[in-house]
């Protein structure tokens, strides 16, 4: 059965149809949420909230063909809510706990730490645009449509975010992380 049929049936209250939709989309929801929130537990919460919200509000979706974009929007909004709940995004200095997981040279690992740190300094709204563009490959028009913002806003957020990432990396902000915070 095609996704569009599942969406129509789920909107009509068919639980099996929605279970199929949830099963096929949960990994993508989680991947998106994780990349925005940088935390597996909060990503899981956001993903669950988005899917439960999708069931609750599916009848408000006018065009079943837009289900993917609509669901992505619910995920992003759930991420915003998660971020508001903790407000950790602008202060936490995240630490990679995956030492050795990357087969890259040491300098690349440092770059990844720097990116993690710089990304953690962005607002959820800026992170979302970066992830939609650089991970999902959305063009600005689709980002704008997905998030319900003007294209110009999407463009300026992406521009600002990338500029901030560059600035933080160039400034070597990762040096702010204490040795105790770094993985062994």
């Amino acid at each position, binding site marked *: 059965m095609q996704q569009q049929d599942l969406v129509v049936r789920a*909107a009509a*209250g068919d*639980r099996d149809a*929605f*279970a199929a939709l*949830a*099963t096929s989309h*949960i*990994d993508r*929801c*989680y*991947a998106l949420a*994780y*990349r925005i929130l940088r935390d*597996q537990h909060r990503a*899981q919460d956001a*993903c*669950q*909230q988005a*899917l*439960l919200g999708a*069931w*609750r*509000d*599916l*009848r*408000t*979706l*006018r065009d079943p063909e837009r289900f993917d974009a609509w669901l992505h*929007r*619910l995920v992003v*909004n*759930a991420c915003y*809510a998660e971020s*508001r*709940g903790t407000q950790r995004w602008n202060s936490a200095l995240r630490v990679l706990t995956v030492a050795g997981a*990357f087969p890259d040279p040491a*300098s690349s690992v*440092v*770059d*990844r730490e*720097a*990116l*993690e740190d710089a990304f953690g300094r962005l607002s959820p709204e800026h992170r979302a645009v*970066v*992830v939609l563009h*650089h*991970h999902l490959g959305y063009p600005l028009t689709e980002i704008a449509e997905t*998030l*319900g*913002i*003007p294209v110009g*806003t999407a463009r300026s957020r992406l521009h600002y975010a*990338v500029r901030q*990432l*560059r600035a933080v*990396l*160039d400034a*070597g902000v*990762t040096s702010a992380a204490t040795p105790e915070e770094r993985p062994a």
Partner: protein
Amino acid sequence: MTRSDEPLFEPRIADWLEDDPYTAPDQALDVVLAAFPSIKQRRAWRVPWRVPGMTTPLRLGLTAAAVGALAIGSLLFVNRGPSGPGGPGGPTSSATPGSAASPSPSPSSALLDTSSWPTYESARYGFSIGRPADWTERPAERDWTVATDAADWLSAAQENFIAAAADVRVSAWSVAVEPGTSTQAWIQSYCVAAAAPGQDCSGYQDGAVPVAIDGHPGVLITKSGFDHPVFVLNGDRMYVVIAWREESDSSVMPYGGARRLVESFLSTMVLGAPIAPSAQPS
């Protein structure tokens, strides 16, 4: 460390994101599959206002109710004295929570205590409104239009107020209307724009009750199973406030139901602030 001004900086972002996990923990799906069957699906509120089929007695009844609401609102306005809020072009000021009179001629019950509610000023849409202290504000990012936003309850063009648990949202906005447009006609066009395929605009009047915002008469939809929108036409602008929940939804129980919640918002609302010139008739 590699300099970030290299040409491949943006691809590095994509590469970095590629290394994040792609698979949700099994528990995530288990939780969703276990929880969703107990959640009641929200009906699209696209409520109908059957203008052509509206009966004369109903039309007369609503007109009388609106006149009554206007009279009550005017009386309350007068009683508030010169420091009270004005109409279009009047003083805009100080929406002191609790200073605005209860607007509804037939409130569902005693309203929430709004005395501690912070006031949000919407320069974009020309009103002020209170919201519970632990709610968050999400200001509108652009002007609302029927064509772009009517079908989108999560529209970023709305002034959004979100409960601490993020399970209840109240939205408010205003939009310029063409001169001579009636409340009923505008809601009809709104309904048509918002309706999902297969939905029509019949039966809306069943849940319409007269209310007022800041002394200006309007209607509140209280139809069972639908969200709670309020429409108030003031001058050349339509003001809309919606509690995006049905009356019996568990998320609004702490507030005594969706109607009481939205009426409490209305009681703090003051119209008449200057509108940015960018808003065009919709």
